[in-house]
């Protein structure tokens, strides 16, 4: 579709509030040769129970239905892997279902689990996601990921998803980046930032102290993108527990309000047609009246430079929650930084900056925990977990990990979870002597974007302290 009816643009509404009660992550690694997937899922579940002072058995008593996010059966060579995990979690005979929306699987799993609570079908749900990407060689893994593209029109072209994605990066680089060296360095800064934040995250497996020059010297994957511009390939699990108000407060003293909206666009980028830009609350038609003149070369919207699915997810979520301007109304974000350039594209899709201006979010220092230009707190810190570049991309878990990280921040418990020396030791790592507490002081509202591939699915999850709601 390229025009939308009023019914299609209806602002979503839950029939009753949904609360994020708890959540947990496993450790993430490139490979776990000595652990089965269920061990990772149980690890994440136990983390969630411990976070609210329960045992796993106690937490299970509250759960009514289960939603399992697992992108790729073929990676694990196990169809119906969701049933395996459900069985190993000992949650039979509860109803359960698998969710698959590519890279957005984690976010979509939360979307489904939240709707079950909101509708009244369940008072408490489990959203659990994982991925097993270490049991085939990397080139076979690339082929498997490419199988998420159109098998007749795209996959035979190199069997490499990066290529299908990177043509969009090239267009953005040409039109909005103007192929400027300064923009190339801005992209590298994102990589430096996110790998750097992951360095302080014991769950992460891509933490590194690197420089812009390191990024610019890393091997070319698909020009202008280099190896350090690309996300990790990971194994691990994450989960959240959602509940209606009364149940949530029985389980926790401080559950958070949760909203989740979703958008989509064509599976093949080729099928995108030109349309009007759907405007977010902080935009007007005037916002884009000079866009073509200022940035010639992209005569289409979203063309290959934007993600309509992300724009629509934000459109629904902002109008629903009452967010007018993400930079003013949110305290931190976790974005789907599959590539540095797609991170910039997302800043624009979700209104952190207008289309064409995404780079200024980085260049202003607003995206940092501490603005390197002013030494003051960043206006809207992004990906303090390290994101997909530095923390992990265990596909089915990624969108859930983001929300767990937001929860730690909004509860003010970031340091307790990330700074615990015993956790670092348990994961076979030494807590860095220069470890930094990345807690955002006074964080009350956060947003997570979970994004599939070239933009076929995107979810926008917003969590906040109940007394910080803007929709009443």
């Amino acid at each position, binding site marked *: 579709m390229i025009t939308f009816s009023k019914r299609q643009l209806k602002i979503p509404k839950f029939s009753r509030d949904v609360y994020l009660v708890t959540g947990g992550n496993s450790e993430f690694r490139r490979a776990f040769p000595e652990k089965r997937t269920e061990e990772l899922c149980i690890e994440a579940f136990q983390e969630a129970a411990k976070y609210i002072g329960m045992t796993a058995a106690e937490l299970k008593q509250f759960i009514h239905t289960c939603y399992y996010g697992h992108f790729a059966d073929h990676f694990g060579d196990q169809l119906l892997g969701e049933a395996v995990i459900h069985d190993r979690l000992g949650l039979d005979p509860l109803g359960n279902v698998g969710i698959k929306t590519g890279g957005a699987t984690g976010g979509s799993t939360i979307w489904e689990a939240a709707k079950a609570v909101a509708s009244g079908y369940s008072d408490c749900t489990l959203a659990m996601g994982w991925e097993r990407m270490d049991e085939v060689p990397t080139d076979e893994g*690339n082929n498997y990921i490419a199988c998420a593209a159109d098998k*007749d029109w795209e996959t035979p072209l190199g069997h490499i998803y990066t290529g299908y994605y990177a043509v969009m990066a090239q267009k953005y680089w040409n039109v909005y980046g103007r192929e400027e060296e300064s923009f190339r360095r801005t992209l590298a800064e994102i990589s430096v930032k996110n790998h750097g934040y992951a360095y302080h995250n014991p769950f992460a497996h891509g933490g590194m102290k690197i420089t812009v020059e390191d990024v610019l010297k890393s091997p070319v994957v698909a020009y202008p993108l280099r190896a350090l511009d690309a996300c990790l390939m990971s194994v691990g699990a994450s989960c959240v527990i959602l509940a209606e108000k009364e149940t949530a407060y029985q389980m926790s003293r401080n559950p958070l309000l949760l909203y989740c909206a979703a958008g989509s666009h064509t599976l093949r980028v080729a099928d*995108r047609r030109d349309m009007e830009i759907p405007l977010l609350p902080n935009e007007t038609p005037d916002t884009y009246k000079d866009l073509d003149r200022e940035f010639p070369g992209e005569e289409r919207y979203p063309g290959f430079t934007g993600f309509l699915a992300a724009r629509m997810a934000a459109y629904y979520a902002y109008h629903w929650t009452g967010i007018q301007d993400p930079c003013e109304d949110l305290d931190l974000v976790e974005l789907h930084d599959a590539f540095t350039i797609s991170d910039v594209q997302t800043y624009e899709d979700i209104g952190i900056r207008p289309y064409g201006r995404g780079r200024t979010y980085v260049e202003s220092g607003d995206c940092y925990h501490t603005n390197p230009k002013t030494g003051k707190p960043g206006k809207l810190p992004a990906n303090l977990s390290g994101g997909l570049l530095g923390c992990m991309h265990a596909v089915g878990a990624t969108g859930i990990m983001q929300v767990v990280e937001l929860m730690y921040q909004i509860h003010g418990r970031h340091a307790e979870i990330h700074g615990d020396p015993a956790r670092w030791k348990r994961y076979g790592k030494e807590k860095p002597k220069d470890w930094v507490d990345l807690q955002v002081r006074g964080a009350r509202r956060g947003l997570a974007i979970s994004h599939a591939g070239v933009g076929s699915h995107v979810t926008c999850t917003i969590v906040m302290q109940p007394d910080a709601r803007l929709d009443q």
Partner: protein
Amino acid sequence: MSGYSVKVVEGKYKLSGEFSTIEPNQPIFDEKGKLCGICNPRRIVHHHSLGGEAPFFAALARGRLLATRCDNEKCKDGYRSVFIPYRIHCPDCLERNTEIDITDLANRTARVYTFMVCERSGAFNTLEKPIRFVNVAFEGTATILMSYLLGKASPKIGMRLRPIFRTRNPTYTITDLAFVPAETRPEDLPPGFTFSLEPA
């Protein structure tokens, strides 16, 4: 892999030969000899229906490029839209599209909308690396086709292109269609490929 064939006879698949090949398992040990896992090797042949898109792939082998067009006058967004990739149904009204031949349009107007030179590939790739992806815009079409560039030139946004077709030993996949810079001479085309051919 060979030694198998698939035909359709009276509307049903008729399979013959070997489709599933099992090989012995191999254990995985760590450096101390502890068992960690197991390898499960085997080879599988999938067969897949091209369905209503089959005319597109068949036409490539004849040196022709087909698209489709919505001719439903009542369709609000899609009427007269030309779709390449070939869509069987209009994405707006879901009526069956009209098949049209856009070979001449492609010869005259194909341009690089965006591109990517990709140094890597996944398993089972058959294209020469680095792969030069080109997303090709045609005058008046609603969509932008993904394909790949052959020849020696580096792709550039706006570059004029011509489609070429694997008319000798076609694979009946999208790799039978590629593009070259518009000024390419017939004698410089890669083996097996030709410019468009006259309709039969």
